[in-house]
Every structure is written in structure tokens, then in C-alpha cells.
């Protein structure tokens, strides 16, 4: 029971802090103080207390999309184990559900962008669905590697590894998969070099431009959902690159939170030292992710 409560707490409370940490890192690199670490929480509370301005051209899709997105990432979050705990929901084949729940979120987010009739938002939606066609194969190569290395089709066991840890022979494939997954995370959570979450040039954005017309609580829900998405995808990656455990339950969770914060620092550093790629070069990066994961798969099953 305790582990479920901890899981829910981490899943619901931690995510905005990760966004704050990324922004803080970027500010440090820029020689600024930056917004407070807890700024994303303040933003969410502020947005929840506002009214909404809605475009006259929109339909129920526009308002349903944020809610569906939040529901799907919450449900997906229940499938991913946090720290050494088992995920609250685990069954054979849940990895497919995990990937397809994120697909459902994408369906509604992009449909809502088209709902506004804005050319900019249409552009963002087109990019989102296009790039997903390249990240999805990478993700599934990674899932194949994890399934083979752990002999399981349950996310909990796949990420925790078999009893006694992953075999030595799986180390090289897992390293390749970790690199691929990191690129997938950057793309899926709209980070530089794929997307720039801070820019105000609509032509260069993907995710931010799709939600230009959302305001008030709906925007808050979207921001919250994307923070949760970052948290669960980061969790997946951490299980691959840093499966450390202290053996003490009460120490494991703080260690895990520290690892997540460390990952956000890395993402912040990547965002600070890299420029955003030209849009037509983004597919090459994503294909590289697919290649890393694909070669990982080949190495493992050869």
C-alpha cells in the first residue's frame, strides 16, 4: 500500500519540479538567476484560477484534448514502475498499452490544433504526427530489447530487469538503447534540438505552437500533462541507465528523485549547449535514434 501511495505522490507532485529544474539549469548556463525552482507550480495555480478565452472556430475537440491528454499520461504513469517499487498496474503486454495511450494523447492534441483553423497550429500538428512516425519505431526497438533482456512483457519486470540484474551480455545493447531513448525523450517532450519550448517564433515550434489558443485551466492541464509525460519517459530511461538501489526502501525513493533531477539537469545542459536543428534535419536525428535502438536489438539477438 505504501508503495502505491509513494508512486501516486511522485507521479502527481514531482513533475512540475522537473520543468523548474530544466529552466533553472538553462538560466545558470545563461548567467542568469532564472525563475524560482517552484515557478511551474505557481504558474499552474495561477492558470487554474483564470477564465478561458476560446476561439469561435473551435468545437468540443478543442476542450476535450487537454483532458484526454492528462487522463492518458496519468494512466500511462500507473504502468511505469517508480524506483524499486512495482507499478500499481502491471500485466502481460502493458508496454503496448503504454505506447498507445501516448498515441491517443497525440491524436487529440493534434486534432485540437487543427480545430482552431490556425495555419501555425496546423503546422505544429503536422510536425508532431510526422516526427512520431520516426520516434515510434525507435521506441518499439527499445521495448523489444528490454523484453528480450528481461524475458518479460510487463513494464515493471522489463525495467527492473530479471532477478539478479541484467546479464553482462545485454550491457552493450542497453547502452545503445539508452542513447536512442534519450533522443526519443527530447523529441517527445519537445526539447532542443527538436523543438524549443521557449521560443515565440511560431514557425519554429512544434508543441508550443499547437497549444497557442488554449488558455486558463485548459492550458494549465496541458502544461501539467506534459510535465508528467517528461517524468514517466525519464523514469523509463533511468531504469535503463541507472538501475541503482541501496537496498533500503526509505533511501531508494529519494535516490530515485535525485536521479530524475540529475536527468533534468542533463536535459538542461543539452538545451543550453545546442542550437535547435533545422526542421528538415530533425528527421535525421530521429532516424539516428531508431538506428541506435535497432542496432541494440541486432546486437542482442544476433
Amino acid at each position, binding site marked *: 500500500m505504501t508503495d502505491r501511495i509513494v508512486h501516486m505522490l511522485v507521479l502527481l507532485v514531482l513533475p512540475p519540479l522537473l520543468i523548474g529544474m530544466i529552466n533553472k539549469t538553462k538560466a545558470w548556463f545563461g548567467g542568469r538567476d532564472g525563475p524560482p525552482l517552484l515557478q511551474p507550480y505557481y504558474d499552474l495555480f495561477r492558470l487554474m484560477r483564470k477564465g478561458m478565452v476560446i476561439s469561435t472556430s473551435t468545437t468540443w475537440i478543442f476542450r476535450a484534448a487537454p483532458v484526454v491528454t492528462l487522463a492518458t499520461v496519468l494512466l500511462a504513469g500507473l504502468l511505469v514502475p517508480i524506483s524499486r517499487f512495482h507499478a500499481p498496474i502491471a500485466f502481460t503486454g502493458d508496454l503496448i498499452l503504454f505506447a498507445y495511450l501516448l498515441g491517443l494523447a497525440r491524436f487529440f492534441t493534434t486534432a485540437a490544433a487543427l480545430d482552431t483553423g490556425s495555419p501555425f497550429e496546423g503546422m505544429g500538428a503536422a510536425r508532431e504526427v510526422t516526427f*512520431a512516425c520516426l520516434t515510434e519505431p525507435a521506441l518499439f526497438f527499445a521495448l523489444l530489447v528490454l523484453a528480450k533482456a528481461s524475458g518479460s512483457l510487463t513494464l515493471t519486470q522489463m525495467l527492473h530487469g530479471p532477478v539478479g540484474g541484467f546479464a553482462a551480455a545485454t550491457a552493450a545493447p542497453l547502452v545503445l538503447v539508452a542513447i536512442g531513448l534519450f533522443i526519443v525523450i527530447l523529441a517527445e517532450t519537445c526539447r532542443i534540438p527538436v523543438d524549443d519550448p521557449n521560443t515565440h517564433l511560431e514557425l519554429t515550434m512544434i508543441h508550443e505552437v499547437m497549444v497557442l489558443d488554449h488558455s486558463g485551466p485548459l492550458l494549465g492541464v496541458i502544461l501539467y500533462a506534459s510535465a508528467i509525460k517528461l517524468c514517466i519517459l525519464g523514469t523509463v530511461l533511468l531504469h535503463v541507465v541507472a538501475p541503482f538501489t541501496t537496498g533500503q526502501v526509505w533511501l531508494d525513493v529519494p535516490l530515485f528523485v535525485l536521479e530524475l533531477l540529475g536527468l533534468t539537469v542533463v536535459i538542461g545542459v543539452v538545451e543550453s549547449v545546442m542550437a535547435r536543428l533545422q526542421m528538415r534535419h530533425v528527421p535525421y536525428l530521429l532516424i539516428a535514434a531508431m538506428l541506435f535502438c535497432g542496432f541494440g536489438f541486432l546486437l542482442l539477438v544476433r
Partner: protein
Amino acid sequence: MLSLWMVLAAAGVLALSGLPACLLGSPSSTGQRAATLLMVIGSGLGLGGLVLSLGQAAPPALGLAWLLPWGQFAVTIDSISILFLGPVFVVPALGAIYGLGYWRSSEHPDNGRRLGLFYGLLAGSMVLVTIARDGVLFLIAWEVMALAAYFAATVEEDNAEVRRAGWVYLVATHAGTMCLLAMFALWRHATGSFALEPSAAALAIPAGVAGTIFVLALLGFGFKAGLMPLHVWLPGAHANAPSHVSAVMSGVMLKMGIYGIVRMTALLPVGAWWWGGVLLAAGAITGVAGLAFAIGQHDLKRLLAYSSIENIGIIAMGLGLALLGRSLDRADWVVLGMGAALLHVWNHSLFKSLLFFNAGAIIHAGHTRDMDQLGGLARQMPRTMMLFVVGAVAICALPPLNGFAGEWLLYVGLFRTLGPGPGPDLGAGAGLPVVAVAAVALAMTGALAVACFVKLLGAVFLGSPRSPLAQHAHDPPASMMAPMALLAAGCAGIGLFPMVASPLLEDAARTWAALPDSSATIASLAPLRWITALGLGLVVLIIALVLALKVLPRAKVVARTGTWDCGYAQPTTRMQYTGSSFGQTLVELFAFVLWPKRHWPAIRGLFSSSAHYKGVVPDTVLDRLVLPLFHVAGRYLPNLRVLQQGQTQMYVLYVLVIVIVLLIWGQMGGQP
């Protein structure tokens, strides 16, 4: 036995349902209503028969002698037939009801009766195809089905495009039938009879002959099912047929090709591993390429047709996995692959019919099939759009609807080909990890499907109207809405409670292959109850979040304004992203398969005047391979016309000469 007679009676009623209207003489709505009533009665009778046959221990069978020199009138309903008969008894009847509003005989006085006649004949012949257990009877039913579909799909034959599509279909379907003729001849030669029943003679077929029969079946049935590159007839025929005919062709008739492959592989001895490998690879290519073509289309019904090709690819992947499992003695692959394929047969018939019905409503409202001319229909047709969203989410295989349940089984099966690992989930038998790459192809089709259907949804229903074509649009009448609503309910029902189908699927898998391992059940391999639990959980969570947002004190709409225009003062609806612009990047990524024809605007001078961009994705196989081949044939083959005298006596002379040559060959010791 009663159940079999009921199904046979249903076939008769369906096949003749259009006759009363023809007898009535003048075109009247009474005739159409009578036809619809007969379709519903026939389907009800058939469904009743299916339910009765479910409880029986041995499949009801019937064999009657007939006057033809070969074969006999042999029919049986086993669990494979039941699964394929389900859509046959559901979709055409709903289509007939839909036709009451969509193709009123008062609006189509010259072709309404013809459509009714061949529509019924199409449905009736498909019933016979699925229960026929004799090669000759099967071929007769097959040919009636093919021709009835031709006459039903080409009712608007005054349109040149319809004639062309019909012609391509006719050529393709007969190319397929030719392969089937060869296949049944070989079958007869190998087993000594035309009976399509498992027998000792069938199991003793040597591997080479069995492989040839398999390849011929794959080609012959592949033409009908639309496996790439045999799909050339499909986009044109589906786009140009009346929408309820498209729904029946796509939702049900394509599955007859799948049925043929399932039936023949069930009869043949266990084949080499390459049987499954070929089918799996063909399925994966068909899946990805089908959607890539779909994304490049402007015509909304052509897009749906290409998406049907993709779904056939997914079904073929399931069959390929099952065939591999049968060759390599992996019962779990057989159960999951066959279960996924057959469940997807049902699912596709539900959501694709829904989407084609929807397309018909859109065409009625907008008077065009070009989605770049439409837009903003959501406000005028809110209920149609709601049902479209259900169909689109289902066809993208997203939870909690039925497409997901089917593909999920297939994924679990494909992951189990990885071979044993440290944990228990992958099974103990030796694996074939290269097959697991198909899961990656399937994931790609998933992402492409989202792109494709968001494009369709956005271009047609969302945003603002791009042309005044649809300004008087409204939701269609109840006769068109009700069938769509029923199909949508079916999508949700199977999506939330897929385990209802699993006993039937397991039964069919065990009829298809003798499985040594009785412990391999769908429930033990892939816990479908979790899909139910999480599907319902997702629905509850969404409702809860909507309510939570409602109780937020100030979460109200405070202002309604235009869409944010980034400071541009005069936005117009023509600046919206169209379907073409939405898919352009993907079309470019897949340009190496699609070979799109593009016309770029030439910009001249500092203040360029109006410019024009045009991009079309034609069917690569048809336009670049088949048609050039026919042109070459058309140039050189006329030399053979010398033989074609136009005199019957000469033709009979040819027959005499050939028979004499064969006689001499036989005498000399050649094979008879």
C-alpha cells in the same frame, strides 16, 4: 442442421432481395423498402443460424449431388466460417438501411433498381463463399460475388472515371480468379477431388505441390484482399462506388480473400517456414506502404481505400505469425496470430464501414470528395463528426476501442517470437527474433494511422470552411445515422469487452491447426480482462477530470474571439493548413515509394503574382508498372490477332487441333 438451413435460406433471401423492386416496374421507394426489409430479414435469419450453430459439437454439414459433372453442393459451417459470416450478416443489411437515405430510388430512378439487385446478390454470394466446401461451388460463388460487386460499384457508369475504375477491377479480379482456377486444378490433381475438406489425401500432398498451391492461393486471394502489390484495383473501385457499396466491398468483400487464404492453409499440410515468412513480410510492407499512400490522397474515399489496404496488411501479419507458429510448433504464436487476424477482420468490418458511411454523409453534404475543399463541417454536422471520431480512434488502434484489442494480441504474439529470456513471458520454445521486427513495422503503421486520420478529421470537420460548397450541410437523416451509431457501438463494445470474442477465436485457431499444446489459450497468453479494466478506467478518468474542471470556481469561458492570428490583420480561411499541407512532410519522407507528382510554383520578380502548387500521389504500381506493361502488350500482341478470325468454325478447329496434340503427348508418355 437447422442452423445450416437457416444460413442457406439467408443466403437465398439476401441474394434475391433486389428482385421485387425489379418486378415492380416503375422506380419507387416501395421497391427499395422491400429490398431493405428482405436484407434485414435475411441477415436476422443468418445471425440466428450462426447463434444456433455455436452450441453444436460437430459443425453442421450438407452434401447434395447436382447436375454439374464435377463436385457437389457441399456446405459446412465451422468456426472459421462463423467468424467470417458475422460481418456478412451485419454490414450489408446496415448498408441497405443506410441506402434508404443515401441512394433514394426517387433520386436515382435509372440505376436504383440495378444497384439493389446486385447489392443483394453480392451479400448472398459472400455467404455461399464462406460455407462452400467444394472447389467448383466455391468458384461459382466467388465469380458471382466478383461480378455482382462490379455491377454494384459501377452504377454511375456515365462517369468516365467510374468506368475506368470498374475496368481495372474487372481485370484484376479475373487475374485473381485465373490463379484460383489453376490452384483448384492442382488441388484436384493432388487430392483426387474438389472437396475442400481435410482428408488423408490432402495431408499427403508433397511439399513442392503444397507450396505451389499456397503461392497460387496467395496470389489469387491476394488480388481480392488487396495485398500489395496486387491492390491496384482497390483505390479506384472503392472511391467511385456508392458509399454503402464501398463499405460492403471494403468491410466484407476484401475479407473473402483473407477467408480463402485461411481456408486453404487450413487444408494444406503444415508448410515450410517461408509460407508464414512471405505472408508476414507482405503484410508488413502492405501495412506501412498502404498508409503512406493514404496520407498522400486528396480524395477522402481513396484515402479510406488505402487505409483498407493497410488493415489487410495487419491481418496478413497475424496470419503470417500463425503460419510460422504452425511450421515451428509454437502453439502460442498460432493462437495469438490467428486470434489477432480474425479479431481484426471483425474490427475492420465495423470501423471501416462506419467510416465509409460517414464519407457518404460528407459527400452528400459537401458535394465533393476532395477534402481540401471541405472544412469546418463539425458545426453543421456535429453528430456525424462524433461518430467519425469514434471510427477514427478505432482505426488508429487507440485504446479504448476495438482496433486496439486486435492489434494488442498481434503485438503480444510478435513479441513472443523473441525467444526465451530470463523471465517466463516469452515462452520456452525457440524463437525467431527477426520476426519481431514486424512489431516495429506495426508501430510505424500505428503512428502513420494517427497522422492519416487526424488529417482527414482536421481537413473535413475542423477549422473553417475552405469553400462555399458545404454551406447548407446538415446531419443526415436517421436512416443514415442509425447504422453508423450501431457500428460505433460495436466498436466500443468489442473494444471494452474483447474477451467475449476469445472463445470463438480460440475455436477457430484450433480448427485451423491441430495444436499439440492445449494450455495455449488467449486468456493465459494475453490477459484481455486487463484491456477491459483499463479501457473502463480511462473512460472513468476522463469523465472525472471533466467534472473536476467543471467545479473549478473560475474555469469558465470568459470570452470568445477569433483564433490567434499572430498579429496578422487579415487572416482568411484559405490560409488554414489543408490536408495536403498536413501530409506533405510525410509524403516527402516516403517519396521513394510514393513517387509523388508535384508541380512547384515558379516565383518570378519581386512582387510575384498568384502562384500554384499541385501535388498528386498516384498509385505507383498501377501507373508505373501495370499500365506501362499493358501498353507494351497492346503494342505487340495485336500481331496475334491473325488467329482471331471471328469465325466460330475456326475456333472449334483450334480446339480440335489442341486436343489432338494433347492426345499425342499423352500417348508418348507425358503426364495426362
